[in-house]
């Protein structure tokens, strides 16, 4: 187990290095000079050179890469060109907001996905099964940014039940788990939950159907176990895979939240990325992507390890 854990972590290191390289390359595939956005059009050559040295753009690419990685390892992701604040601070505030939203969305999606999946898997071919299958197709097909807009139209513009944008009353930055804040979260969280819901429902349906077809279930029934007792066995067998899917979905939501956050003006990483892109704030873009991608890689590792611990039958080569 320990050997597996170490091997898994070791295998992750080159991936993380590659991810860093891609993030580093982002600034250099960008057309034009990244300094253009902060310099006045009539900036003197001397000022240009000084800023170039300050941001390190005057050194060779490998040199720039390694010093960037070295500083990133110490928690320094550079300075935002637009706001002049440290990128790390900005990203961390935003990541917390995004995580909060993505976590709630994953829980909603997982709960309903499991519900639909279990019912569909238990009653295969029934109306409920068809309905659940239809829902999961709709869930993976819907453009979530549009779904967000439709929910805003219905619940904010038409019914006036919930606020359309923001993460709290009066645009306050502090989060609290009270109704005033939670009602801001409802629409974006529901919008976001639709994606994992469809995928979890699909996975759980296939899992349940597969488990029910196995011989040990017949054995349990023959032993005289009640429906409830059999159900508990099914849950125990389906849980590791279902939880793994949930974990991965949380990661996808972290990355995929940008469009939803833009619709709801949710002050998370997506919103940050959006402003970084349009202000051509490349250090901020680079830092945000790096943090999100590394988080995704680590989450994959954690999911793998948890899954192996929950289900020792999974043979790891």
């Amino acid at each position, binding site marked *: 187990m320990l050997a597996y854990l170490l091997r898994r972590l070791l295998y992750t290191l080159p991936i993380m290095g*590659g991810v860093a390289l891609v993030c580093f390359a982002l600034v250099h595939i960008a057309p034009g000079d990244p300094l253009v956005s902060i310099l006045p059009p009539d900036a003197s050559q001397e000022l240009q050179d000084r800023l170039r040295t300050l941001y390190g753009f005057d050194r060779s690419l490998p040199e720039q890469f390694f010093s960037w990685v070295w500083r990133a390892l110490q928690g320094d992701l550079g300075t935002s060109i637009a706001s002049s604040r440290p990128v790390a601070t900005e990203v961390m505030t935003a990541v917390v907001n995004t995580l909060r939203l993505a976590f709630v969305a994953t829980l909603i999606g997982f709960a309903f996905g499991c519900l639909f999946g279990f019912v569909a898997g238990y009653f295969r071919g029934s109306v409920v099964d068809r309905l659940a299958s239809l829902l999961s197709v709709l869930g993976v*097909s819907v*453009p979530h940014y549009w779904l967000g*807009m439709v929910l805003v139209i219905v619940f904010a513009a038409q019914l006036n039940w919930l606020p359309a944008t923001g993460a709290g009353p009066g645009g306050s930055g502090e989060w609290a788990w009270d109704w005033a804040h939670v009602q801001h979260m409802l629409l974006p969280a529901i919008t976001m939950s639709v994606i994992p819901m469809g995928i979890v429902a699909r996975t759980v349906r296939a899992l349940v159907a597969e488990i029910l077809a196995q011989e040990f279930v017949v054995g349990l029934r023959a032993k005289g176990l009640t429906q409830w007792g059999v159900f508990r066995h099914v849950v125990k067998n389906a849980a590791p895979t279902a939880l793994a899917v949930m974990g991965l979905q949380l*990661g996808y939501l972290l*990355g995929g939240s940008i469009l939803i956050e833009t619709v709801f003006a949710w002050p998370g990483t997506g919103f940050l990325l959006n402003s970084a892109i349009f202000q051509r704030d490349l250090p901020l873009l680079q830092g945000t992507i790096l943090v999100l991608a590394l988080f995704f*890689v680590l989450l994959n590792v954690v999911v793998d390890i948890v899954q192996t611990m929950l289900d020792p039958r999974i043979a790891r080569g």
Partner: protein
Amino acid sequence: MPMSAAAAAPAVPVPPPRSRGYWAGVGLRFVKDPVALGASAVLLVLLVLALFGPWLAPADPFKSSMLGRLQPIGSEGFPLGSDELGRDMLSRLMVGARLSLFMGITPVVLAFVIGTTIGLVAGYAGGLVNSAIMRTVDVFYAFPSVLLAIALSGALGAGIGNALLSLTIVFVPPIARVAESVTTQVRTRDYVEAARASGAGAFAIVRVHVLGNVLGPIFVYATGLIAVSMILASGLSFLGLGVKPPEPEWGLMLNTLRTAIYVQPWVAALPGAMIFVTSIAFNLLSDSLRNAMDVK
């Protein structure tokens, strides 16, 4: 539905003269599946719009009118209302099919060609070449797809070409992975060994023995990817990273109409419904193809 039978036709090449071949069986299973026919019918309508939209549209999709701004659905001269510049929504939605489908399908087609090639090379060569290629692919796989698409096109800047390039880069790794895993499986089969022993070159073996096994699963997979690609491509335009105004494209239309959700909410939601329908149709088509072709 004779029209949808026509859409299914390309899946059925000339049936072999003797027994019913594999593709004839696939075609037969496909046309017997009502979901497959429905999805094909929807896609055929969208294809007709993409090809002939400008001639079929009742009005000029670019002609704006200051007096006719944000008309409701069903108003005089604007059957589906008008947008924030007073342009006819019905015409823009119809003409928009061309650019929207183009933006969604092109990256998957490009990634299909590039990814399959990469996967075939990696799978057939094996060893160090395989490791080098697949570890590079793994790095791109380590990014959530939406994040990678937005990161790349955000860095490259707005525009159709950059959006297509970013999406292609996003879709190459998953296709390459599927191609590589199938090729690696096929490579060690006895008939490949036999072909190699009888002096067939690498290219001939790949073309005759490997490609036939690889293309089916990837084709099904790629059809499903188009659904994702439609949402992502329109999403990029929705963020202002893809198509630029005044071109009619559903994602961009959704973006410019966002401000109108308090005035004409249902007109503003229309372009998204088009993306939704297209994406559903491709997902259902992919599922039906998977069943008909009996691939995993």
